[in-house]
């Protein structure tokens, strides 16, 4: 017990006092919190569109003024010709260009259905689709006010958004960022720990002491675990106090799940660390491991969008389960049963990675 305490305290000091690990410890979480939470949005706002209005009547002007009044649109560039339109789209000055044909007002006046043409930039297909839906809404609302012909009763469906009524992106981002940041720091801190001792020459010193292998391993696992838990607390507080994201589930359950997840990740980091000879290799190794873990977690795009074979391969990615838990406990008051249903795969992954890394650690002692 005394030995274990000694190595744990040493590992914690090593982490805090080494200026290099301080960089990995504090800067990524800060950057992520400040930039990622705002920058990583799939919302589309401040849109620049072009307008080629060849009708120039009351109704087309009405459309234009509603466009200008919409909070989603920033500037409306008046276009004079199809040539200008082409150039504006080509140069990405606008993401969409609206074409109102010369007979538009006449058709509206005469009660005929009228069509507004929209050309969108398929290079940014995702944003373009969202722009199209905004334009559709405006077109519908202009049409609804035109007059007797449009007595259409209000929509045939009522849409309710549970868990995040106003579909606020930050509510989605913060629980996801939490998963990201504990993964990134957890992996890099663990991956460094053994390789740093190898490179600095202290590894031999450790191996000739009476410390047992499992004591060394446990001692090295505790600091990343603590870092992960501290990050968890910081993000929990920031979400609540700065960003106003609710936390509806059980806090105890959350930290229990976080601990299990951290252990699984630490196993991966230990694997990388045991293989690496130098810190350089450990850094690259943990980077190569971090990218798929994070990118395929379901945060950047849903897991169900992946091809089937990749979904199967992704079953070993602990981040995808923890992401569900994080969103569930923040927003959905996820009950114990549902959390455990996501947790057991992480437990299996953790057992495998930890056991393998312990084995590798022993095998690589020479």
């Amino acid at each position, binding site marked *: 017990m*005394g*030995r274990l305490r*000694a190595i744990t305290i*040493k590992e914690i*000091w090593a982490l805090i*006092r080494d200026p290099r690990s301080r960089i990995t410890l504090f800067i990524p979480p800060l950057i992520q919190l400040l930039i990622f939470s705002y920058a990583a949005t799939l919302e589309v706002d401040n849109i620049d569109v072009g307008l080629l209005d060849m009708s120039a009547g009351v109704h087309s002007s009405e459309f234009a003024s509603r466009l200008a009044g919409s909070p989603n649109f920033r500037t409306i560039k008046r276009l004079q010709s199809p040539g200008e339109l082409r150039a504006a789209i080509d140069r990405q000055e606008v993401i969409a260009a609206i074409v109102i044909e010369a007979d538009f007002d006449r058709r509206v006046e005469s009660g005929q259905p009228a069509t507004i043409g929209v050309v969108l930039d398929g290079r940014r297909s995702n944003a373009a689709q969202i722009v199209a839906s905004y334009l559709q809404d405006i077109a519908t609302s202009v049409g609804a006010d035109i007059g007797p012909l449009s007595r259409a009763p209000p929509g045939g469906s009522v849409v309710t958004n549970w868990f995040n009524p106003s579909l606020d992106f930050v509510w989605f981002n913060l629980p996801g960022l939490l998963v990201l940041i504990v993964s990134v720091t957890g992996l890099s801190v663990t991956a460094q720990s053994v390789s740093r001792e190898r490179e600095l*020459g202290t590894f031999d010193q450790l191996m*000739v002491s009476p410390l047992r292998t499992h004591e060394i391993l446990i001692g090295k696992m505790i600091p990343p675990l603590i870092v992960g838990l501290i990050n968890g607390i910081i993000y929990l507080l920031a979400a609540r106090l700065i960003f106003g994201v609710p936390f509806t589930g059980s806090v105890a359950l959350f930290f229990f799940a976080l601990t299990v997840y951290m252990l699984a990740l630490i196993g991966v980091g230990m694997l990388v660390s045991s293989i690496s000879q130098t810190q350089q290799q450990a850094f690259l190794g943990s980077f190569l491991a971090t990218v798929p873990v994070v990118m395929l977690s379901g945060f950047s795009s849903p897991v169900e969008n992946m091809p089937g074979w990749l979904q199967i391969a992704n079953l070993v990615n602990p981040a995808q389960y923890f992401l569900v838990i994080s969103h569930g406990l923040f927003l959905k008051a996820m009950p114990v049963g549902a959390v455990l249903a996501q947790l057991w795969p992480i437990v299996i992954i953790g057992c495998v990675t930890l056991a393998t890394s312990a084995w590798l650690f022993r095998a690589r002692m020479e």
Partner: protein
Amino acid sequence: MADHVAQARDIVKRFGDGKPSLDGASITIVPGEITGLVGPDGSGKTTLIRILAGLMKADAGEVDVFGGQPGEFLDDLGYMPQRFGLYEDLSVIQNLRLYAELRGLPKDEQAAVFDQLLDFTDLKRFGDRLAGNLSGGMKQKLGLACALVKTPRLLLLDEPSVGVDPISRRELWSMVKELTGEGIGVLWSTAYLDEAESCDTVFLLGEGELLFSGKPGELTGGVRERVFRISDFEERRRRLLTRLLDRDDIIDGTIQGRAVRVLMAPFSPRPTLDALGLASSVEIDPAAPRFEDGFIEILGGGPQGTSALAERYRQVPPGDRPAIEARGLTKKFGDFTAAHDITFEVPAGRIFGLLGPNGAGKSTTFKMLCGLLTPTEGDGAVVGHDLRSAASDARAALGYMAQKFSLYGDLSVRQNLDFFAGAYGLNRTSARSAIDNVVDIFELGDRLSVNAGTLPLGFKQRLALACAVMHQPPVLFLDEPTSGVDPVMRREFWVHINGLVERGVTVLVTTHFMEEAEYCDEITLIYRAEQIATGSPDDLKAKAADLADLDDPTMEDAFIALIQASERVEQDELRSAA
């Protein structure tokens, strides 16, 4: 035209606040001579060399290289930095070619020059080997070759011989000596004082100031008739040395096999048997002074003889088995045999030395005995704990101190001590008293919160020893413990070790310093994975004297003679097999 190739006068160089790294140092390098730059660690040797190479600017003082500013005529400069400046992932030939091109050696001359340099450095067989896979000695020669691809007028060598075995060191010296014959001016910085002694001129730095300059003989001359060799005594030699060093009229002393060599303080009378409390059978003979004696004196003398550490150490009870046993230890890495059938025993309370050139297998043997490597064949035991079945118990019984300073540099002194006390399973109370003890003994008190990595080398050394002995182990493993450390600190270190051995501690040491080898009770010489000779230092010297027909050989002579003899035997066997 000046008669020097480079000269620096009254150089001041400051890094941050505090005492300047160089404080008014001067040096002159003359063509055709080896100029020695000598001084303890941190005395500013490297800074001065870098200023001469144009890599740093002096804050004050005048520097003149080839009659211009440093860095102006780089075509004529050869420079070998401490780490040799080799690209480890390039082959020997690729390294040479790179530096040849960079120095503008014409293409049509390259083949001939490379040929000559590879001959000169005996690296011909390794032309295609990656520099990273060369031994320390070979790297050093390749580094020199790279500095010489285009014959320079000035050659700056920054501690070229640190961590290199005596054979390589001697070869390098003779290579450089040969160059001076061509009129090259060489600056050789070193911590080895026997090298300094062979230089044509010596500049001695201490804390950035020039303490001495002139022929080495002038420094040695100052201690003439004050050096004596005491032999044929009955007393245990370590105890005698301790007693002598505690006297005020003796400022330095070392063990030399069965004899003790002492340096008397200035103006003290010639020592008599009575005054030293020695029996009448003991002989006291004047000995030839060495540069080292003058060096120690100019730095204020060596330490006292009694070790405070040993005084507070427990008395290790003698066991019924040898403290360290190696029986047929063999280690193979794939096809390569790193150590073969190594067998020896070390009785409790003795110092046992593992000697050998770089890469010969002494580190492998050492690592097997302290449990870092599992032997392929054979077994061993430490204080009766078998290395295979009770490795953890064996590890608990030993203290370990490695070649490279291998404590945690980012942790404070206090945190390092806490960790090692805990790692060796001391409970809270005994950890506290052990730490208080070593802090007191090694005067670490006002540095407890300093990062271990920023300590001066001497204090690092003390801290490393403190961490290794806090749990009062019966056995100490020392892997090149004083590599790169200056003689005064080395003396202090050995005072402690000698004291501990008198307490019954057993020591296993690997070293390149022949002076350290002299402290050993028994030595085994390992060469090409085999044990080629085992015996006391005097035995080995006698054996070497027979083999090479030498008169009163030094330990280094013995080392070289024994290895050359082994090589001859091997060649004979090869020939007869063919």
